[in-house]
């Protein structure tokens, strides 16, 4: 394929949308441009003012205790927690968006977004509005260029995930805590919650057809009883507030069999051992390879590529840069330009990059809300879907066009869309779009037509 096609694919499909000059800089070495991005450190966010999840969660837990006391005193405290959490959410979303717009390593930033969505949390659960951003910074970003097993371990023991999937209060039926409740003949039922265990197997590792049973889910849930958070959990509230803590007294004792393998009870290490083994199964390799190739190549990725990527995942023990390289090295990745319909997130980021729009104030919040993809709010642990049909609705399209129109109106004559079009779309620029943009009635209409063009709706 011609360099102008490969550079457009590299910048728009593997990257986050070309910035002016980016296609020229990529030139004929599209593959090298991507590989170079995989070298260098983990993709940390430059914003140093953001708080750690421990700080945020400790404050939120303290605030919730205060609120409970004040509510007893009859005060109206309904909005206090949201008022604390929302500014944190806004700062995190803005910092993440600014990084995506400015980054020189857009492939790595897209990978970060991919993994954050694979291990999705959603801010509609209490505390998560304050924790989703720090979760991504602490559990995802350090491992995007590392090993899948380490990524998995970091995610599953992060307080945001433990809270989101309810594991922090899950209690083994034969644990010391359960025995104590029995002695006291406590009214309150004590037992496991299998939510996190199920989603680890179904959504994070093996995939739904990955060969586990209900018994595996239940047993695995017992294995990870005790994976909890300091400062949470009423009378079990020991440990540093907001930090991961393994609570022996909640843990279901004994040797356990998960997926046909026996695990001796070594407390926290028992769960970590299951995760390590699950991360290295062929089912996990297939599942991750399918999701990655779907994200980067096509809604229904060629089975040969999926298998190749899964093989590398297996042989390398989940070495992620090698997995990414297998993707880039597949010739199928460089055919069929524009195979993916952009998500709203892709669309807004690529617009900002392409038009060099300034990230001011809380820039990304309104368009993400309007176009139906609020950051870190997929509404379910499955994350946002990744196929055209999930995003190409009629109402969704008209909103993109309306937003494009508003962007055009805001820029006025500040951009020359006719001159930008080949810089952003390269060989994908169609004659129809070139003509439409060139013949636009005004500079602002030209911007609108460029952003509304079929080749800008896709990547």
């Amino acid at each position: 394929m011609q360099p102008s096609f490969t550079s457009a694919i590299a910048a728009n499909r593997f990257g986050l949308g070309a910035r002016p000059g980016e296609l020229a800089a990529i030139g004929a070495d599209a593959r090298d441009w991507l590989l170079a991005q995989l070298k260098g450190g983990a993709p940390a966010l430059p914003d140093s003012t953001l708080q750690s999840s421990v700080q945020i969660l400790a404050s939120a837990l303290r605030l919730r205790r205060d609120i409970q006391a004040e509510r007893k005193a009859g005060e109206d405290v309904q909005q206090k927690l949201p008022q604390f959490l929302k500014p944190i959410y806004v700062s995190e979303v803005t910092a993440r968006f600014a990084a995506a717009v400015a980054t020189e390593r857009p492939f790595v930033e897209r990978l970060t977004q991919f993994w954050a969505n694979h291990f999705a949390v959603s801010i509609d659960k209490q505390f998560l509005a304050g924790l989703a951003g720090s979760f991504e910074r602490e559990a995802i970003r350090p491992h995007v260029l590392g090993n899948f097993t380490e990524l998995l371990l970091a995610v599953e023991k992060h307080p945001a995930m433990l809270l989101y999937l309810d594991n922090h209060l899950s209690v083994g039926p034969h644990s010391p805590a359960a025995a104590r409740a029995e002695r006291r003949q406590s009214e309150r039922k004590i037992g496991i919650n299998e939510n996190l265990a199920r989603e680890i197997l179904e959504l994070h590792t093996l995939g739904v057809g990955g060969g586990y049973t209900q018994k595996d889910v239940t047993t695995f849930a017992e294995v990870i009883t005790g994976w909890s958070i300091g400062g949470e959990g009423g009378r079990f509230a020991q440990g540093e507030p907001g930090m991961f803590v393994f609570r022996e007294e909640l843990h279901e004792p004994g040797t356990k069999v998960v997926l046909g393998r026996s695990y001796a009870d070594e407390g926290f290490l028992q769960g970590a051992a299951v995760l390590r083994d699950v991360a290295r199964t062929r089912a996990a390799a297939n599942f991750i390879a399918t999701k990655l190739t779907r994200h980067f190549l096509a809604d229904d990725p060629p089975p040969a590529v999926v298998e190749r990527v899964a093989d590398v995942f297996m042989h390398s023990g989940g070495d992620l840069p090698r997995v990414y390289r297998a993707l880039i090295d597949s010739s199928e990745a460089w055919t069929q330009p524009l195979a993916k319909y952009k998500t709203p997130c892709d669309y807004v980021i690529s617009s900002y990059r392409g038009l060099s729009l300034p990230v001011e104030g809380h820039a990304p919040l309104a368009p993400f809300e309007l176009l139906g993809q609020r950051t870190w709010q997929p509404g379910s642990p499955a994350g946002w879907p990744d196929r055209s049909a999930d995003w190409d609705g009629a109402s969704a399209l008209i909103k993109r066009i309306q937003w494009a129109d508003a962007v055009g109106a805001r820029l006025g004559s500040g951009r020359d869309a006719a001159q930008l079009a080949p810089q952003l779309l390269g060989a994908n620029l169609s004659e129809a779009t070139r003509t439409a943009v060139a013949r636009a009635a005004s500079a602002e209409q030209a911007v609108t037509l460029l952003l509304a063009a079929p080749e800008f709706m896709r990547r």
Partner: protein
Amino acid sequence: MSMRRREFLNLAALATGGALLTRLSLAHASERKSRLVVVIMRGALDGLAAVAPYGDRDYAQLRGEFALRAPGEAGGALPLNGFFGLHPSLKFMQQCYAARELTVLHALASPYRERSHFDGQDVLENGSGHAHALQSGWLNRALAAAPRSAQREAGVALGQNVPLLMRGPAAVTSWSPSKLTALDDDTLARITDLYAGDALLSGRLADALAANATLASEEGEGAMMAVSAPAAMTPAQAGAAAPAGNARYAEVVRAAAGFLRQDEGPKVAVFDTTGWDTHANEGGAQGQLAGRLSALDQGLATLRQELGPVWSDTAVLLVTEFGRTAAINGTRGTDHGTAAAGFLIGGAVAGGRVIADWPGLSARALYQGRDLAPTLDLRSVLKGLLADHLAVPQRALEETVFPDSAAATPRRDLLRG
């Protein structure tokens, strides 16, 4: 409001003034037709909480502190038939039951027998009996097989995108309110030209303009309210439980009613509700789930009010992907289960009944020792509903809408004669 209203009409007028005029004017008013609303309750509704079998001797023990008491007692269920009771949040639904406009379906399940939300929803929507076996939805295939009507769009999804249930060969559209200004007609004409060679985008754009035109031609207060409602909640609002939930339902159901009220409009509307995945702190007569159910109930009351006389031609189906565990789990919630409850509500429904072949809740009766066992195949309900309400031919129901469902005999007793 007037500003947005004007802008919206501008866009709609544009649509009707262009090539779409021909298509829209083909639609003839007047023939009275059945309307169907499908509400997908995503996340797995706890059927034993929504419709409590307080007469079952194992129920109270399984549900512990969250067991609903019998009707008449403090915090008790609302009366149905002496064995089942509705959750106390479902006040409007109970009125419908008393007026014979609500049929409760219990121990109801799709053919799906695993416990993944996402595969469960896929089976619920694709109608094949297997996850990911079809890329279209049963409702769309039913519309494609139903007698043709004049309008282009047979159905509308209230949301930006079309859920799997409504994807397929029949023309459907999606609609959601917008805060943005309308496009000027020159820009829109140029974009229409630009999409001429792109089948997907040109089709979607035409669908969107047609949907806007449909709603704008509606002169009722309902459409105006739908148009002027805020596009979405802020995160803070979304976190504020019941009031925000109520506003969201109200916004969606007003728009749905705005479409369905019209003779030329779509006859089927679909929307989602969420928040049913109650793994922790579910609550009983009061609490988390009670708030969600209350919002749902008020949304349905708003729907009836907004539909006005059309309510008598309407059936509303509420379904979820599967139920939840019979017993309360260790975090005062319930985990993923099997059979659930569903509802058929509306003036067209032969209501005042609970349809349930009750399997019981004893340890032996529970499915895999943990879940309410399924005894009513959802496809029996759907096939009967589609045959009698939308006149979908029997053969199409068996062959294309629900392939391999011969064992699920259609229930032909769901609607008023």
